[in-house]
């Protein structure tokens, strides 16, 4: 005990900072910065070779976000454990709030001091934290019991349905899938999973009726884009044309005709990867997917190593969240999934998702640094 104290007192703030700095995960930071810069470059191209209106904003947000991430990385990870409940409650409240004061034609954003904030994005992170905290808190024996999962399921579906009712089917489903993946991860019994599947399958007609017409359209069009080649199917057809016409090397940076001539819808947000595929080709697309894979693997590797269940669940959850972002977005633009409206983290234009990912990465880095010290 004394020894420990002594050692602690010997360390100056400076040496502590540098020891932490040296422990930062190089892979994660490099791939984050790389992807962020790819985002800036793509947004520059999306504006037809202009910093305005997207690329400059994105760069500023990126720099700010990375700063924030590094600050979080140096904080002890116990703080996130302590903040988890309050952040979840704030998240839920803002989701309810957005119903009343939300802006945008579908109520997804809250405007605070001129900055648009999308609570559903932040909710994903809050959910990971609260679930991690819950499972960390309860006795490990109770994990075998079914009733242990009632509260987590409530915690998952409450924000899930709030977001779906915004209406934002894509993000809502992401939240639910993310939560269920965490339950699966901590070892919920297979019987329960099967039960869930049956419940979900039987509620599909119910959900279908709850969907807005445009959401139904999207799903129908996904199944057959040609039914409406100028309407809802237009996006996906044009997106596939852009990707396919890119070929192996692409049409060249700033030279994508589909994006330059505005055939690509939402080319600066959800469909930004299409622009990249068109201009940089198969080579570029696969490279970027690869960088994402390195990022996700690095994060998940941490969860394998850390000791506390909280850290395990948080790192796994964040890794899985990134994976969901990636697969939903890219699956959507290449026509494997319906158009659900999911941004590509770090690359799509949009502050909330960028900051969410960077904050999440900050938490991961913090766990990576600190969880090793305290066994």
């Amino acid at each position: 005990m004394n020894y420990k104290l002594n050692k602690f007192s010997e360390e100056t703030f400076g040496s502590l900072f540098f020891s932490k700095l040296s422990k930062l995960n190089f892979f994660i930071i490099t791939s984050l910065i790389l992807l962020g810069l790819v985002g800036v470059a793509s947004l520059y191209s999306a504006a037809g070779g202009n910093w305005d209106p997207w690329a400059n904003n994105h760069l500023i947000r990126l720099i700010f976000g990375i700063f924030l991430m590094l600050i979080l990385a140096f904080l002890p990870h116990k703080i996130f454990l302590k903040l988890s409940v309050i952040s979840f409650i704030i998240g839920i409240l803002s989701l309810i709030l957005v119903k009343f004061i939300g802006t945008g034609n579908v109520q997804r954003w809250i405007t605070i001091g001129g900055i648009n904030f999308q609570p559903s994005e932040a909710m994903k992170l809050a959910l990971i934290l609260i679930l991690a905290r819950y499972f960390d808190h309860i006795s490990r024996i109770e994990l075998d019991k079914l009733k242990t999962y009632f509260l987590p399921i409530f915690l998952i579906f409450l924000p899930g349905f709030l977001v779906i009712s915004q209406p934002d089917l894509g993000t809502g489903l992401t939240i639910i899938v993310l939560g269920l993946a965490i339950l699966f991860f901590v070892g919920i019994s297979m019987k329960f999973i099967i039960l869930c599947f049956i419940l979900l399958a039987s509620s599909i007609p119910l959900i279908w009726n709850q969907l807005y017409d445009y959401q139904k359209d999207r799903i129908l069009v996904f199944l057959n884009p040609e039914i409406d080649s100028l309407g809802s199917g237009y996006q996906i057809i044009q997106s596939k044309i852009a990707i396919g016409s890119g070929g192996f090397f692409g049409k060249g940076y700033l030279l994508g005709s589909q994006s330059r001539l505005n055939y690509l819808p939402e080319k600066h947000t959800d469909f930004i990867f299409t622009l990249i595929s068109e201009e940089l080709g198969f080579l570029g697309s696969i490279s970027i997917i690869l960088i994402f894979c390195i990022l996700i693997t690095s994060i998940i590797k941490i969860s394998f190593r850390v000791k506390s269940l909280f850290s395990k669940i948080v790192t796994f959850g964040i890794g899985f969240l990134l994976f969901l972002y990636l697969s939903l977005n890219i699956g959507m633009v290449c026509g494997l999934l319906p158009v659900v409206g999911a941004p590509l983290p770090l690359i799509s234009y949009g502050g909330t998702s960028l900051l969410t990912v960077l904050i999440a990465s900050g938490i991961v880095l913090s766990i990576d640094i600190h969880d090793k010290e305290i066994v």
Partner: protein
Amino acid sequence: MKNKSQKYLENVISKRFFLLSILKGVVVGAIGWRFFDLQMIENRKYEKLSDENQFNFYMIAPERGRILDRKMRLLAGNMDGFSLVLKWNKNINVDNVIKKILKIVNISKKDLNNFYDEIKSDKKVFAKEILITKKLSQKDVSKLAVRSIEFPEVNFLMTKKRVYPQGILVGHITGYVGPYSKKDTKIKLKSNTAWFEIGKTGLEKYFDNDLRGTFGRKRDEVTSKGHIVASQVYENTISGNDIQTSLDMELQAFAVERFEKGSNTLVSIHDDNVKKQIEKLKNISYVNQDYVYKDKKNRIVNPQSGSLIVMDIENGEVICCVSSPGYDPNIFSNDLEIDVWNNLKNNSRAPLLNRSMSGVYPPGSTIKMAVALAALENGIIDYNTKFYCDGAKKLGESTFHCWAKDGHGKLNLIEAIEQSCDVYFYELGLKVGIDKIALMMKRLGLGQYYNIEINDKSKGVVPNIEWKLKRDGLQWSMGETLNASIGQGYLLTTPLQLTTMIARIANGKFSVTPTLLMNQNKNKFEALKINPQHIGFIKKSMERVVKGNNGTARNYQIGSKKIEMAGKTGTVQVVRISEAEREKGLIKNEDRPWKKRDHALFVGYAPASKPKYAITVVVEHGGSGSSVAAPIARDVFKYIFKV
């Protein structure tokens, strides 16, 4: 206990971790494969689609080649015109734009219909240029230009309009152009080329490929909203080739006028008497809007209809080719109005028919040279063989009459041709037989198409035993041989074929074939293979037709010491005359209704001493060949040789 459960948990987590990693691997693999599929395997397909998005492709019409006469006078050329084009995209309110334009200028219904069809035609295109009309006058253009700010989507284009400066004179030969439609050509044109024109008839059709030239190509880069960002001509147009025809427009103009007049006289419609008469009649064609023709009985009549062809007997060049009534091909270049079209189509005299090549007529007595040559070549008669004509020939129960009611008496071949004795040729026909006559007719150019540069032409009919058996399954009868021997019955020829026949006789050495081009047929005719002595004899008898004391055309000599014409008249009965009618006495030709009058024919060549040109005149329902057709031929020759 705690340790154990912790171990268990870690075990579970590891397992689940593994399962989820597999899931992730599968998903990323699927995405990777999808991109490989889209970008590597199906790359071509999407590249094409992307190009179709990026560019709108257009064809640019080249300038059409001109059609010229032998002295480089213009028969068909191009004039600058103005077109109105809408830069259409799916966001434009078309009806609004059209409404605004219609307030300023008139656009024909036909054009508007085409315009709307074009919009509907290709639903996958978001933006294109669509022709509204190409018939803007200079006035319309300036009216529109002043207010063009109200419809920025509308563009003016300089386009070429086909013009035929000779108007009605050679409409049948030049033909006309019309808008391209898919069934017209094998060339695949994109839908946005709808306003390009292709030849529909005549030389315009036959030489369409040469005249048309090569299309240029242009592409517009368009945004998804249909705004044209850039426009690039990446293949230039190549103008079409000019075509020099063998026609002589000076002669053609004279011939048309002379032919239409026939043996009638020109009177002014401002004359009170004439006015009254015109009011009673329907469908009288005016001459130069102020005159009409009046026949010898002071009746107002239409211009003569029929055909007149003049052809060079050495090289087959057609230097004059009249088909009356004609039509003005310019009406097709302008907006063809429905009543004008109906008038043309329903006119009982069929102005659209090119009588020179598509019209078939029984040749009548003009065929007698062929029958005589068949007899001579087969050694059936000699130059002195005589037959007796008493005005009719009995064959079985039927009687075949000669045109001279009282007969010609005893006469030889040269006299028979000079006086056109029918009975003599009945006798010849019986002796020679139809098959040999048909062979000679074919050798002289009847019953066949030529490679003349017009698509629509008739073959005519040269009957023989086999032909009848094939067509009707019936045996050939002797009576039919008699009919064929004087150019009646089944026998049918076009004026062009008769001209060719005369040219071959006048030439005597080669099987001349007609052409409408300059310098087309140089030394490439086959030999005629007819005894030149026989030819000489026939030519002499044709000279007698004009110069002989009893010649059927003796009243219409050119009268020059140097130049005289030779020929043969023909008068073709259109209606069968029954024995009862014959007993009563024939109604005079000019007293019958027009449709029942005889056709008047004359075939010939000049100068008689050293033949140069062959001529055929066919005047439909004109009366007798000697009094109506021969003088036209004489006047044309007079004009050609300036005597």
